[in-house]
């Protein structure tokens, strides 16, 4: 069997071929940023328990490294990975090729140059004071220009689709393509271009940060979950008729949920109350989405053993449910009184970004990249290493940061405990976090090596070629049969 025959059987070969280079460039940059951001994050974490570490140079002090790490992960890894996955899936589900992919190279260059300059700006003392908007102002236009092309490509691909129907993953991707520029542009204008005054600034900032997580990263992760479960299991989504309700409800309430970050802060109290109510209303879509996704997995958990994509998607769904529960808990005033401004609030964002979003992107990469390159993943051990370090890291960091935040909150609320003592107690937890981050970094390096072997033209010669079967058609569940089985 030669490779031409194999490729002829590949499902939707032309689409994958058209998406190959843009998606590879986005995934490649994403993984490099993942490593770089992870390293910066590790440095920042180490400095919290060993303050002398790299403290001699202004560029590597905590105040610069910590925001640089966060920006590298969010805008470098997160956005690039979302672009790669989103463009590919949009093309696949719209049954149309990704046209004029060369422009996406330009867009990728703009975006990554923007992120690089932004990070250098942060490290070189030009950062702003707003969370996730620390990059200096001049970078904004470069990023928006880069995004404009990517967003337009996703939307045009959708609008020239060759399919009659639109699937749930497309709702989320199409929506996210509009929500990110909306959030980013408004936050830039209201905070940096023509700043609103005083107390409104943290409100706008909280709205942006919450929106970026809730209306960009979560929708992209859900698009992956809704696509890969039926795709790999060969089974339709359970109770799919509820999915549209969950989508609209999620979108409608998430935009109002940002205020919940400001519980206890000196802002008009209705803003944080509205945020708490929005987080409470989010229980409805979370329950529906959990019914959809876990309902589809139900009875088929054995498939997790043989599919690395499903494993990552499974972690992602768990991360989504956990992050939503955490968001709700942090909206409760009694709980927030203890854990607000502790490691627990870091954990909330990390759960969404890493446990939910990043794992979904890993799963997607393991599915997509062999299709783009026509090659197999070379090392089983590295794939397994990546999965187990990710799963272990998620468990360790979730449990560790939750316990640490709880303890920290109680100590901070106790006026008799001197602040220095709290710092000493937390040294253990900061060390714990560094270990967790090292575990994750090992997995990311394993992923990088496998990526180079499959995608880099110079290094992938020894990688075996992939052979794909034409997947069968999905069939409707048979209600009559289900009913008879129920009676038996």
């Amino acid at each position: 069997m030669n490779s031409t025959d194999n490729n002829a059987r590949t499902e939707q070969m032309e689409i994958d071929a058209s998406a190959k280079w843009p998606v590879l460039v986005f995934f490649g940059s994403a993984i490099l940023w993942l490593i770089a951001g992870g390293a910066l994050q590790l440095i920042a974490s180490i400095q919290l328990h060993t303050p002398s570490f790299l403290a001699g140079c202004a560029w590597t002090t905590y105040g610069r490294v910590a925001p640089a790490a966060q920006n590298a992960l969010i805008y470098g890894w997160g956005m690039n990975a979302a672009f790669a996955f989103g463009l590919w899936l949009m093309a696949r589900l719209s049954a149309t090729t990704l046209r004029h992919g060369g422009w996406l190279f330009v867009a990728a260059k703009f975006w990554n140059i923007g992120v690089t300059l932004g990070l250098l700006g942060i490290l070189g003392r030009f950062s702003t004071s707003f969370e996730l908007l620390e990059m200096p102002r001049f970078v904004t236009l470069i990023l928006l220009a880069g995004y404009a092309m990517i967003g337009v490509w996703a939307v045009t691909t959708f609008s020239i689709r060759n399919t009659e129907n639109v699937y749930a993953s497309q709702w989320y991707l199409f929506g996210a393509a509009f929500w990110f520029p909306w959030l980013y542009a408004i936050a830039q204008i209201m905070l940096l271009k023509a700043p609103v005054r005083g107390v409104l600034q943290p409100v706008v900032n909280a709205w942006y940060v919450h929106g970026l997580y809730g209306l960009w990263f979560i929708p992209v992760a859900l698009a992956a979950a809704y696509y890969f479960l039926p795709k790999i299991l060969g089974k339709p989504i359970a109770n799919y008729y509820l999915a549209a309700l969950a989508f609209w409800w999620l979108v409608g309430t998430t935009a109002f949920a940002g205020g919940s970050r400001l519980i206890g802060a000196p802002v008009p109290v209705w803003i944080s109350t509205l945020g708490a109510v929005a987080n409470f209303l989010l229980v409805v879509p979370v329950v529906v989405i959990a019914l959809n996704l876990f309902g589809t997995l139900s009875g088929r958990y054995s498939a997790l053993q043989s599919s690395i994509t499903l494993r990552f998607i499974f972690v992602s769904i768990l991360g989504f449910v956990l992050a939503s529960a955490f968001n709700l808990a942090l909206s409760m005033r009694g709980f927030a009184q203890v854990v607000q401004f502790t490691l627990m609030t870091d954990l909330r964002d990390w759960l969404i970004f890493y446990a939910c979003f990043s794992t979904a992107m890993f799963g997607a990469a393991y599915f997509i990249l062999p299709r783009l390159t026509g090659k197999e993943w070379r090392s089983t051990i590295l794939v397994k290493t990546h999965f187990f370090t990710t799963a272990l890291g998620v468990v360790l960091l979730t449990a560790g940061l939750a316990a640490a935040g709880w303890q920290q909150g109680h100590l901070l609320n106790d006026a008799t405990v001197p602040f220095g003592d709290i710092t000493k107690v937390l040294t253990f937890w900061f060390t714990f976090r560094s270990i967790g981050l090292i575990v994750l970094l090992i997995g990311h390096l394993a992923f990088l090596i496998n990526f180079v072997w499959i995608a880099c033209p110079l290094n992938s010669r020894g990688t075996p070629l992939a052979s794909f079967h034409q997947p069968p058609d999905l069939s409707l569940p048979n209600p009559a049969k289900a009913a008879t089985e129920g009676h038996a």
Partner: protein
Amino acid sequence: MSANSDKDFHLEQGGASDDSIQQVHAQLQKQKPDKANGYSFLPLGILGLMCTAVFFGSIYLAHYSIRFDPLVVNEHAKREKPGAVVATAVPPAVLGKKVFSNICATCHQATGLGVPGVYPPLAGSEWAQGDEERIIRIVLLGLNGPITVEGKEFNNVMAPLGAALKDDQIANALTYVRQEWGNKAPEVKAETVSRIRAELGARTAPWTAAELLKIGH
């Protein structure tokens, strides 16, 4: 039936074509799968969850938004509008003044000094400030015959007011009398009036001063 039989994770095989995923789900979205028999609990459960979330969410919002006032940062701040009319408890003596002016002041006068030789005074009176057991009985059934008040003799009839006034009206009026014009005696409770009214049973005859002096101290 998983599409991937190997556990080497070298590549993922698809278990369904993209086209069929879209078609099947488009059908599933239009109609929920028919149940051959019975009723599906799920849509009802989701509807219940939606209603519960909206209901409690609205109450919480109304409770802790403090009128969406931009200047309030504390969720436990007062929720009434500034300048709103608030019901406050009126002291019994103030309520009693109305009853006194309508009824008692006819004889005892608004000044509480009575009419010398005809109606005994209440201001400074040892009866008014004395045992509440006696004066409650006087108001309920009236008084007939001679009585000494502040060292002066009176001989007249006081009408029974027990049928005309409610227990709390009597208590309030007596409280007013006991705390006005320099009088200093504790408040009379409506419960005391009810108890004494019950103790009287079927008696309708007015009291005499001699009888009352045997009651209380």
